[in-house]
């Protein structure tokens, strides 16, 4: 590695040749502010259009200021990141950005978490000296994502995430000059685009131009209604991130506190999506074994690999892009929807109430779940199995609204029976976790032997595409894993061409899996936060007394009392789904 010597803010620094000034400065703890620059170093994603000019620095011997994000450091450079000239220029740049930015911070969903707002504060801007034209773009409301493009500052992070990380291609920069915005093809509504509602555009947006549909009011209304029994379920990834909203270290596990605040808010039953994740493993694992057994018996109609179907962004993606392969993914519903089906059938019956009088709320790290729970196939007489899907951030908002001291609240347990879960269900929150959980159960069901070691570390990690072969007592089972839809597309294209020998592939749309979901507390591009959540997920798993889904006593009881057997008739009816060809649904308005 070739090194160079430079000076940053009077400090001599040795740095790697080829690195940008911005990166070198960050490594030595000098914070050059940016707006358009966005990096997720753990998954090699970078947005570097050099457009906002907030990161300009002064380089000795150069006439003009240089953008730190797009300028490589060279031998002998003498750089000033906060000289008088730089500070003045930076303030002017931000003032100009503010000149056509709506000043509705009081009611903006991003307020307090907005990078433009905090930058304006940091630069001491107290008035906006430039009066410019304001853009008047319509608000685009979809079931999950709101686009309020008047707030767009053209950083183009969303465009990069949508096209490079996800290869979804819903968004692109259009028009030029003042008219330029990021929009869908023909400026149609998001619902008519190939958007998967993964929401990573929201996670990347530095301002309030992209946000999730807020359903906290509807949930409060339901809780206030004495005729409704309101049940809440919480996804695995929420418990390792929610604490961040209250100043806790990333990776702090707050399962017990989360259960306690949900009870305080007034939910009648505090249950766990993890329970349904165990149920998913029973169904999906059984489906996998059935397909493998048939395949080995020479049945050529069997589709292998089986693809996981927990991630709603991923489901939307393959419905749009792989309509010829709709029989390849597992038919198992996602844990959230399985929970909804169990709650509104089994649990409603146990309580002796009608399904219309039950409201199921889920707390999800995810934005696409808002779309998923509104799918027609998950409704009975237009009553959905899951009524509302709130994000981790929305739950934090509720906690603040109800003035609950999150740090002080005593831990509590989930209610039973739908609150009991195993370590296998917790790891659903991380990339590789679903398939590891499935492997733990499938191994024992397939071989009839007890696993000595439940940790399949070969399936863990944060690389975009991973593969491993697990020895099922003499039978090699080939497993593929992808997170990010660009990576999934790579694997799926190989499957389509018949070039793989995988038995099963797990896909999650978001970086790191659900822990990096778009509904999680904003990480503002700090991938270390995702790494810490990742580590916490496996810590939570290791601390569980039971770590295999099929050993969950409440799952066993549910099959004995009610469901019968995995992939049986009632399961088929309530816990499995089917997929639709959506490639033709990308409409062009008349």
């Amino acid at each position, binding site marked *: 590695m070739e090194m160079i010597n430079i000076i940053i803010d009077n400090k001599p620094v040795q740095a790697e040749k080829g690195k940008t000034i911005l990166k070198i400065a960050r490594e030595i703890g000098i914070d050059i502010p940016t707006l358009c620059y966005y990096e997720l170093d753990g998954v090699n994603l970078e947005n570097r259009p050099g457009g906002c000019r907030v990161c300009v620095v002064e380089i000795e011997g150069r006439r003009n200021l240089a953008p730190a994000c797009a300028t490589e450091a060279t031998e002998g450079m003498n750089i000033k990141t906060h000289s008088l000239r730089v500070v003045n220029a930076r303030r002017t740049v931000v003032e100009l950005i503010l000149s056509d930015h709506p000043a509705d911070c009081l009611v903006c969903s991003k307020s307090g978490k907005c990078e433009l707002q905090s930058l304006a504060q940091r630069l001491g801007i107290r008035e906006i000296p430039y009066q410019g034209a304001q853009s008047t773009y319509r608000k685009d409301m979809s079931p999950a994502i709101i686009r309020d493009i008047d707030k767009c500052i053209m950083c183009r992070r969303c465009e990069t995430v949508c096209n490079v990380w996800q290869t*979804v*291609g*819903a968004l692109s920069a*259009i028009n030029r000059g003042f008219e330029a915005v990021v929009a869908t*093809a023909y400026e149609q509504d998001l619902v008519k685009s190939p958007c998967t509602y993964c929401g990573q555009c929201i996670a990347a947006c530095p301002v309030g131009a992209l946000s999730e549909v807020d359903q906290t009011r509807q949930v409060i209304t339901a809780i206030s209604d004495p005729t409704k029994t309101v049940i809440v379920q919480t996804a695995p990834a929420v418990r390792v991130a929610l604490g961040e909203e209250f100043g806790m270290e990333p990776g702090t596990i707050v399962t017990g506190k989360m259960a306690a605040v949900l009870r305080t808010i007034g939910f009648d039953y505090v249950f766990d999506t993890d329970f349904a994740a165990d149920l998913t493993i029973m169904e999906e694992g059984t489906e996998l074994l059935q397909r493998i057994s048939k395949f080995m018996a020479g049945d050529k109609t069997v589709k292998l690999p089986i693809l996981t179907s927990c991630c709603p962004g991923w489901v939307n993606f393959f419905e749009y892009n792989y309509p010829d392969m709709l029989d390849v993914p597992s038919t198992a519903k996602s844990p959230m929807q399985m929970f909804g089906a169990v709650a509104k059938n089994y649990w409603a019956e146990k309580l002796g109430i009608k399904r219309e009088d039950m409201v199921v709320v889920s707390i999800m790290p995810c934005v696409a779940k808002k779309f998923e729970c509104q799918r027609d196939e998950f409704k009975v007489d237009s009553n959905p199995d899951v009524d509302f899907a709130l994000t981790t951030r929305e739950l934090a908002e509720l906690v603040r609204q109800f003035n609950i001291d999150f740090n002080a609240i005593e831990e509590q347990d989930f209610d039973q029976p739908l609150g009991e879960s195993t370590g296998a269900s917790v790891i659903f929150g991380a990339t590789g976790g679903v398939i590891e959980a499935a492997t733990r159960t499938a191994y024992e069901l397939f071989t009839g032997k007890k696993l000595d070691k439940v940790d399949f570390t070969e399936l863990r990690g944060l690389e975009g595409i991973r593969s491993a072969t697990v020895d099922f007592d003499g039978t090699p089972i080939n497993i593929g894993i992808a997170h990010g839809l660009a990576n999934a597309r790579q694997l799926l294209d190989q499957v389509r061409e018949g070039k793989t020998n995988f038995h099963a592939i797990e896909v999650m749309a978001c970086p790191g899996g659900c822990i990096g979901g778009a509904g999680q507390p904003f990480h503002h591009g700090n991938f270390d936060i995702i790494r810490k959540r990742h580590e916490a997920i496996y810590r939570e798993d290791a601390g569980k007394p039971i770590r295999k889904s099929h050993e969950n006593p409440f799952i066993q009881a549910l099959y004995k009392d009610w469901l019968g057997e995995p992939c049986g008739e009632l399961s088929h009816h309530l816990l499995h789904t089917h997929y639709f060809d959506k490639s033709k649904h*990308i409409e062009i308005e008349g």
Partner: protein
Amino acid sequence: MAKIKLSEDKINKIKEICSAFGNKPSEVINVLHKVQGEFGYLPAELQDLIAQEMKVSAAHVYGIVTFYSFFTMTPKGEHPISVCMGTACYVRGAEKVLDEFKRELKIGVGETTPDGKFSLNCLRCVGACGLAPVVLIGEKVYGRLTPDGVKDIINEYR
């Protein structure tokens, strides 16, 4: 945006153009040039087909079409009118001539009359500054035009 259905012929022609450029994403601009030359404009349906053939998103194609002023999504009229707004024509009253065309045809710049006969556009210098102000209708050049003369010229084509 009127919904149009592409004929088999048109679809094949566009596919042919795309494959002539190797269906390479980097060649989208060239394909758009060629297709607009062929069809006169680039409606959404054409862009969708081009996106599919060139293996890029429709949003990406639309981004290019809206960025470059050369590309248009509205069909040109049977007689496309181009008013030169180059420096020489401008100082000799091209703007007034343009206003007269707008008033007479009841359309704005970049638009087409409802009967599809005329469309109105501006361009920069046709290299006939001696004749300023200059207007092109189709391939034909009209020089030293005054607002008074606009009606008569339009009537030639009505």
